[in-house]
């Protein structure tokens, strides 16, 4: 009986191990959310996800205690029109990366529980599945920032980087 109670937390820990470790291999950088004018119900967040491991992951969704819902979106130009398309999941190849950036793919943070301003932080949980359908998650914190103007050059470079990582 004693032995069982001693082993039980260990077994539990072992069971949890893959869940904790799987997504921990992934790196998140350049994460930020765009401060929005008062009265708006959505915010966009951007980040780069890097996968230094050889295994493939699928980003299946996100959640945050600060928002009602989070979706992945892609802004596309069709026939001179700007359209937002929902992206249900994104594949992160082994040794690959995904870039969420202004004007491209972004995280749409829907209905903030309170107005978030530059300097505030947002907690996000990213949910993944790996090649064996094992689920894992990654919790990150990202700052809200007031955006500054971009240039075609900086955006182009980011895009270029993401391509070179994916191949």
């Amino acid at each position, binding site marked *: 009986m004693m032995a069982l109670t001693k082993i039980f937390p260990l077994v539990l820990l072992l069971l949890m191990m893959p869940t904790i470790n799987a997504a921990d291999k992934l790196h998140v950088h350049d994460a930020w959310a765009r401060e*929005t*004018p008062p009265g708006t119900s959505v915010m966009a967040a951007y980040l780069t996800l890097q996968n230094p491991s050889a295994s493939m992951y699928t980003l299946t969704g996100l959640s945050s205690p600060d928002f009602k819902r989070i979706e992945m979106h892609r802004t596309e*130009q069709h026939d001179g*029109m700007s359209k*937002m398309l929902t992206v249900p999941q994104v594949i992160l190849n082994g040794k690959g990366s995904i870039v969420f950036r202004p004007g491209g793919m972004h995280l749409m943070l829907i209905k903030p529980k309170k107005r978030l301003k530059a300097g505030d932080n947002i907690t996000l949980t990213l949910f993944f599945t790996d090649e064996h359908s094992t689920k894992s998650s990654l919790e990150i914190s990202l700052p809200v920032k007031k955006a*500054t*103007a*971009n240039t075609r050059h900086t955006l182009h470079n980011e895009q270029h980087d993401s391509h070179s990582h994916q191949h």
Partner: protein
Amino acid sequence: MYCLLRPACCRLKKDAQYKPPEVNYRAIIHFMSQFVKITLSLIITILLIGAAASLVQQNDNAAPGTEARLMKPKPLTAFQLTAHDLKPLDIERLKGKWTLLFFGYTHCPDVCPMTFTELAQMARQLPPEVLGDTQFVLVSVDPQRDSPESLAEYVGYFNESFLGATGSIDALTTFARQLDSKFSLETDPAGEPIVNHSSAMLLIDPQARYYARLKAPHYAEEVLAQYLALRNSYSPDTP
């Protein structure tokens, strides 16, 4: 013996009537003239291409950044929207100023704030005399959610002098059509409205004529350069 070895030679000697084969001068002349024709036409083509290229180059040098200008400015006809200050936004309000106009909506998380961040940056870089007769307008195509009051907060966030405006779907459709722009309102499976809108930036001249169409994406420095080039090469008398 010699003749046995060289029968042709023997025959030549024997046959006093032999004439060397006649040269077909006509064929040679024909060939030569074809050759000259082809060469000449090639040279002319190359020269023409060169001339055309240099002409295009010269045009570029004359007014870089004016490619966005319409072939012919298009006078706008009557329309009525309501601006965020609750005054009408109509033809009269466009006259006497240059207007940079963008169709969008305030619940747009990515493209609209990005565009207006760039426009705010551009406004900061404009020479004061240019800024004085320039107006920046966001026309919301989402009138159900965007009231003039919410537009006031939205545009004011980017720049106190920016204008926001909206109107009935009919008024917006008529106005957008005049600027070769369009929008559509849909609902996603979760019941959230989806707003699609033209991403071009429209430039209206001080005579309330649709003057130029700047393609997305809009970066401050590029919009600034194009706008100044368009203004500098502007002649109010253009029909």
